[in-house]
């Protein structure tokens, strides 16, 4: 198995000194979809941001295809093919959907190319490409446009930070379809931070992060069984489709 990404003994504390990750080790194989799950406050989003370079680890090393990228910043990691989809997508006054996707792709795109990308997230390019990425877009729309920007990049590794956060149920159903589509045409490796059972089910591997380290991990089949049988370890959630 080719190791695409390797995190070795990663630790990170907040500027106030609160320890969030402790000596965390994680390997993401090439061409696989990994879902990282676990209780809120366990360090999942921090881990995702450390992979993208948004946070710099206090200690430990990160390797991409055996190249040490520990000291590289966000821009440098992005240029190596690491993409990051934000949990709360950013809005831009004056920048159109077309412009943002072209910035992500690094080139001008034809209407057909935009259509291909937008259709992967269930949006009609005709209807959206000239709209500004501003507050007139709904939570579901901005989320899907955020995903479209990372899909446009043809990355070697894409990290999605809680794609289901902040969207309504109707948009969630469509979002799951989007990820099922991404799963069936997997290009590079994907890491998704998620609480949702339906996202966990499409994983090759599930990793449970709690209290700043990996508690357990394994194939989706094995882990779904473990998680559904012993939810008491991580606490129950009232949401029907949420495991945590």
């Amino acid at each position: 198995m080719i190791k695409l990404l390797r995190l070795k003994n990663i630790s990170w504390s907040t500027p106030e000194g609160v320890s969030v990750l402790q000596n965390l080790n994680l390997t993401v194989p090439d061409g696989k979809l990994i879902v990282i799950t676990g209780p809120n406050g366990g360090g999942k989003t921090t881990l995702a941001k450390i992979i993208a370079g948004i946070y710099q680890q206090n200690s430990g090393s990160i390797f991409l295809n055996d190249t040490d990228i520990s000291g590289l910043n966000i821009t440098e990691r992005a240029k190596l093919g690491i993409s990051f989809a934000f949990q709360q997508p950013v809005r831009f006054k004056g920048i159109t959907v077309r412009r943002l996707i072209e910035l992500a792709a690094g080139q001008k795109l034809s209407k057909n190319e935009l259509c291909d990308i937008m259709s992967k997230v269930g949006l009609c390019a005709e209807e959206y490409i000239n709209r500004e990425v501003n507050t007139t877009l709904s939570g579901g729309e901005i989320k899907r446009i955020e995903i479209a920007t990372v899909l446009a990049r043809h990355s070697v590794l894409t990290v999605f930070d809680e794609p289901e956060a902040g969207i309504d149920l109707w948009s969630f159903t469509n979002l799951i379809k989007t990820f099922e589509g991404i799963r069936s045409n997997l290009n590079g490796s994907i890491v998704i931070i998620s609480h949702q059972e339906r996202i966990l089910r499409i994983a090759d591997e599930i990793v449970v992060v709690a209290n700043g380290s990996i508690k357990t991990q394994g194939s989706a089949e094995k882990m779904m069984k473990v998680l559904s049988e012993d939810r008491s370890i991580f606490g129950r959630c009232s949401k029907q489709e949420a495991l945590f």
Partner: protein
Amino acid sequence: MKEITKDLLREISDWNGEFKGAYNLREDGMCAGRVSSKNIKIESKKDQPGLEIFVAPGTKDETVSIPACVTHGDVDDLVYNDFYIGEGADVTIVAGCGIHTETGEPARHNGIHRFFLKKDSKVKYLEKHIGKGHGTGLRSIDPVTEAELEDGAVLEMDTAQIGGVDRTTRITSAKLGAGAKLLIRERILTEMEQTAKTDFKVELNGKDSGVDLISRSVARGNSHQEYHSVIIGNAPCTGHSECDAIISENGKVDAAPELHARDNDAALIHEAAIGKIAGEQILKLRTLGMTEEEAEATIIDGFLS
């Protein structure tokens, strides 16, 4: 036509060797070319420097260009242009201004434009201002715009001043009749030691008249901008103004919007936001492979587009 004028024209009016439709080119305070069309007559004013532009009633889809260029220092150009738009006409007016000085001497253009829009006429007014050249000579552009809109008339103003102008004072006023609409979109970028002052006064006098005033500005370096708008609702009307500004380095922006409702059914809104570029916006663009500087330039470019 001077080469500097050609360069300025390309930037302020998308000129590519010729004008589309009627035009008057002003170069260093003199007329450097004029063409009227069947429906649009351009004539020199008798009593002061400037033009009278007559658009015949019912004229459709025509463009008139009246760019003004100052190509060297020690020029103080003052011009009075009056636009008479006939009933039911629908035209585009392109009125850019470019100033170039290299000598250390000041160059100034002061355009006083008056618009008289007859009933149900429609005007799209495009105005781009730039300053060019090196040296310490101050580049100033001080436009004054006055508009009177009769019932059902629509004036859409799209103005941009993106860098290079050291001093500007922009004064815009309008009076609207019943059902008339005024849409203003202003974009200003100042840098270094530049200052920009913009002042709007809109009187909504007719029933169902409306104004939508959107100002976006960026102040960086040690530049300073002042925004002041007054919307007066004298009838059942709608008024909306929005002032968004990005500040960076030591840039300063003062915004003072005023709303005056003089009728019980006047609905007036103002929105204002001033601040630096959101850190998340820079982060997002960096995750797409841009440097911090590239991200900032892209955000500002989009904001002012």
